[in-house]
Each structure stands twice: as C-alpha cells, then as structure tokens.
C-alpha cells in the first residue's frame, strides 16, 4: 500500500487561559489531538467525522502545515507539512467550507488567473482543468461575478474548482456541503466522486452530513477526544455502534405487541408494529416466523440511521473539556 498520508502518534496541545476570579488567571493545557495514528493510501477517499471539538479541524490544519504539532510524526506525500509548508502547498488542495480561499472582491475568472500564476500552473494544464471544472460544476455563468456576490452553494463549487486547478495529489475538504441545498449537495458529491475515480486524487473529507460519507466514502474514521475511535468500512461502524435494524410490519388487524425471539416490539400503532433486531442478524428467520404465526399484510425493513450509530459511539463523553473546531 502506497501511503500518501502518514500520522504516527501525533499530538496537539493548546494552552487555554481562563479567568478565575478578578485578577487570577488559570492556565490549562487542552489536548485537541492526542496520539493520532493512521495512514491513507494514494487514491483513497476517506470520511473523517466526529463531534464538534473532537479534533477534526486541528488534524486538517496539521496536515496542511498551518499548525505545528506538539509531538509525533506526520508526513504528507513524503513531506513534513509544518517544516515545508510552502513546498507542500503546491501538492495539496484545501477547501474550508466556512470561508473562501478566493479573493473576495475579484471576479471568479481573475481569482482563478491569480491562482494559476501563484501556483505556476502550465497554461495547457490550467486551461484543461478549468474547462473540466467549469463544465462539471456549472460555473460558466459565474466566471465574471465577484466572489462576494456568489451564493453559498455557488461559492463552494467555485472554491472546490480553485483547489483543483494545480492538480493536487491530496484534497482536504472541511465541511464541503455545509449549508448547501439538496441540489448543490448532489452536484458537489457527484463531482468529488469523479475527481477521486478519474484523477485518482486522494480525498480526506470532514463533515457533519453523514449522507456525504454514505455516498462517497468506503472508509470512515471517527475521532473523539482527539483519539481515533473507529477506522474501517461503514458496515463495521454499525456493528461497533451495536445498532439495530427495524422491521415494520402491517397485520390484518390490531394485535397486542408481538412476542418473538430475537426481536422486540418498540412501537405499536393500530395494525402496524415496529420490531427492532440487531443489525448484524439476518431478517429472514424473523420474517418466516412472523408469517407462520400472524396474519401479515405487508412488511419492510429500515436500515439504522448512521447518525444514531455515531451518537451511540459518542455516548458518555463529557461536554466540558471541549475546544471549538
């Protein structure tokens, strides 16, 4: 496996000063990232999720070289980000969902032209990349509009294009779909999927919208309290989170809550009942037994919402020792 991103025991501590009384100030060291180790292979698309203040943004900032780690080893494309920040900058693309990297008052076209010259992108590569982005992200009509006049969805698309003009090997996306409407979200996701499959760009994506992960990433990493609490496929996440699937059953008539092995009735509404069973178990024997014992009209299975799974994983964490971001 050709690891493009490597972290080995990476730590980041902040000193937080707090007022304690009139003149006294308390100093406290907060560990935003605490012994983080993982690898991302070239061409992978990885979802990086966790609650607010878990250390997601801090990780991204260390991977881009903005923040200097307090300890541990970190390498991106063979480069130590904090030591060779400007050299690395040519090889990575960054999209901050909350703020633009474009020049606020310049028309989009001028912003891109400035990006071309700052990154010293060859003219033919630039033209090809820009044309592809303009077409796939629907930017043609926005090129002469100053960035400040773009809507959030338009600006996000414009920002993603800007981050890809110099053919980066890695693309970091920090909340790329935050605040977007359904259509814009779909457009952004479709584009990211293409970038990842066609250009083999490695993508690391933080998000609060778990649909992003479900639709884009085969691998997901969950961070909490600055530590990796899960790293693997989406399916595995269900097992770890001890999640349950739900069987929704319509009977011919109203019945008392059914009593059946391997499932429990969680809700009853007229002739309809909701039966929960472990996500890892098969539904077939359950359905067979139900059909044998009760007059069935219809049934369907609901997959567990990944939100619930994650919420269960975060259960029991204390809110007090949080850092923003």
């Amino acid at each position, binding site marked *: 496996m050709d690891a493009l991103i490597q972290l080995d025991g990476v730590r980041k501590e902040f000193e937080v000063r707090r007022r304690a009384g009139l003149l006294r100030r308390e100093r406290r060291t907060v560990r935003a990232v605490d012994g983080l180790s993982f690898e991302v292979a070239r061409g992978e698309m990885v979802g990086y999720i966790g609650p607010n203040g878990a250390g997601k943004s*801090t990780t991204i900032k260390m991977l881009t*070289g*903005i923040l200097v780690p307090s300890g541990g080893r970190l390498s991106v494309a063979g480069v130590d980000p*904090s030591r060779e920040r400007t050299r690395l900058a040519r090889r990575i693309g960054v999209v901050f969902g909350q703020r633009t990297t474009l020049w606020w008052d310049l028309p989009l076209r001028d912003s891109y032209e400035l990006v071309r010259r700052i990154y010293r992108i060859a003219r033919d590569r630039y033209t090809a990349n820009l044309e592809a982005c303009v077409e796939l992200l629907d930017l043609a009509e926005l090129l002469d509009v100053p960035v400040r006049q773009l809507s959030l969805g338009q600006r996000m698309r414009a920002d993603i294009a800007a981050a890809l003009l110099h053919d980066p090997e890695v693309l970091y996306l920090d909340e790329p779909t935050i605040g977007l409407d359904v259509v814009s979200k779909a457009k952004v996701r479709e584009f990211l999927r293409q970038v990842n499959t066609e250009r083999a760009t490695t993508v690391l994506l933080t998000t609060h919208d778990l649909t992003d992960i479900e639709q884009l990433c085969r691998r997901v990493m969950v961070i909490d309290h600055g530590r990796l609490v899960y790293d693997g496929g989406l399916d595995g996440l269900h097992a770890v989170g001890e999640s349950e699937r739900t069987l929704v059953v319509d009977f011919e008539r109203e019945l008392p809550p059914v009593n059946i092995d391997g499932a429990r009735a969680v809700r009853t509404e007229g002739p309809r009942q909701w039966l929960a069973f472990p996500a890892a178990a098969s539904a077939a024997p359950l359905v067979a037994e139900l059909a044998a014992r009760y007059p069935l009209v219809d049934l369907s299975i609901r997959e567990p919402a990944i939100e619930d799974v994650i919420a269960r994983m975060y259960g029991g964490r204390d809110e007090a020792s949080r850092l923003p971001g």
Partner: protein
Amino acid sequence: MADAGRLAGFERRGRTAVAIDGLRAYLLIAGMWIRSTMVYRTSFVLMAVGNFAMTALDFAAVAIIFGHTRVLGGFTLTETAFLYGSSGVALGLADLVVGNLDQLGRRVRDGTMDTLLVRPVPVYAQATADRFALRRLGRLTQAAVVLGWSMTRIDVAWTAVDVLLVPVMLVSGAAIFAAVYTIGAAFQFWANDAAEVQNSFTYGGNALTQYPPTVFAKDLVRGATFVVPLAFVNWMPALHILGRGNPLRLPGWVDFCSPLVALATCALAGFAWRTGLRSYRSTGS
C-alpha cells in the same frame, strides 16, 4: 567548517529565493487589485482626489499657523514644509506598500489567516498585497508636491551630499515606517486590537515628524530618537540639509545614520513577524 559555510550559503540563497518569490507574488496580487480598481476608473479618480484633498487640508492647517507667526521653533514656513513633505512622502510610500497589514487582526479573528497559509507563497507578501489600494497615491502625491515646493524655496546651498541625502532620507524613512507597520501587525497575532497602537506610531509619528523638533519637549524628541526611531525618518537628515544643529546635540555623523537605523528596525520587524507567525501556527488563534 566547510560544511557549515556551505550550509550558511544555502541558507542565504534560500532566503533570497523566498524574497524573490514573495516579491513576485506581491506584484501579481497587487497588479490584480490595480486592474480590478481600474474597472471603475471614475470611482478610483474620485477616491484618489479625495485622498489628496484631505491631506492637502492637513497642510493648510500648518500654513494657517504661519499666518500668525513668521517662525515656529526657529523654523520658517518653507523649512517646516520641507519636514512635512519628507515625513509625508516616507509614510505615504510605506502606507502604499504595506498599509494593508492593519487588516491582519481581522484575518486572525475570522480565520481567513489560514487561507494565506495554504498557498505556496510567503504569507507576508499576501498579507501586504491583499486589497492593494492605489488611491493611497493621493496622500503620497500631496506630500511630494509640498516637498517639491519647499525644496525650491528653502534657503540652502545644495551640496552633492545634500542632494544625495534627500532620496536616502525618503527611502530610509519609508523603511522605518514600514517596519513599524510590520511590528504592529506582528502584535496582532496575539492582541487583536494592536492595530490602534501601531496607528499611533505610524500616523502619530507622521504628525510628530511633520513639525520641527524644536517645538516639542526634549524628552519627546529623545523618545523619538532612541526608543521608536522616528527621528531618523526625517529630522536627523533634514536638519543636516537645512544646516540646523541637532536638537539633542548628538555628534554630526548621527545625521547620516538613517539607513543603518532603517536596516536595524527592518531586521527587528522581520524577527517580530516571524515570531508572531510562529506563535499563530502553534496556537491557531
């Protein structure tokens, strides 16, 4: 030893390469802003004229003082105009080139500082060139007009040294003001409202050095000489050109020290900037 020497040489070349890269980025970004300003040419002309008129009123105030008295602290109107113009040109140049550094506190607060750190060019070049405002030429032009006018009127037997001293004075003065801007900006990495403190040194320093040093209390002049080296912006070299004695009775060679003082303040500014940026990158706030 040879290794150390080669390493030092590499380090120097590295610095030069970074400086050239930074300058190139500065020109690119500033150029883009000038082009975008020129799209609204009328608006630009009005702004520049307004800027010129505002600062012109400022000099009118000086002229009014001389309507009531022929000399101020032993200096005539034209001599005062020479001080006013030289200080104004120095500040105008610094303001034009690095004046946008006062936006740094905002960048740190709203997090857009991070976007400068992910681009492959020096942060200082980006922070200074961002929103490059050509209208600031208005202030510079006004000061240059006053300076030019005063130089044709002052009673000076121009020697070659005097003539050479004028551009040296202006460039050194601009460098000193730019260094003060930069040090002020570096403090904004820690304290967000440091911009106001820095303004009191740049704009306040300009107001100070516009007038002859003899009208101020001696302690203030001492402070401006030794603590914040504003006196070297124009007082020291200008007093030499005007053939006046040094207000602090310092030896004559001090009059020529402006370039050295400028170099020293710029070195200090570079240190402050790097320290500030390093602190930002270790705390992220």
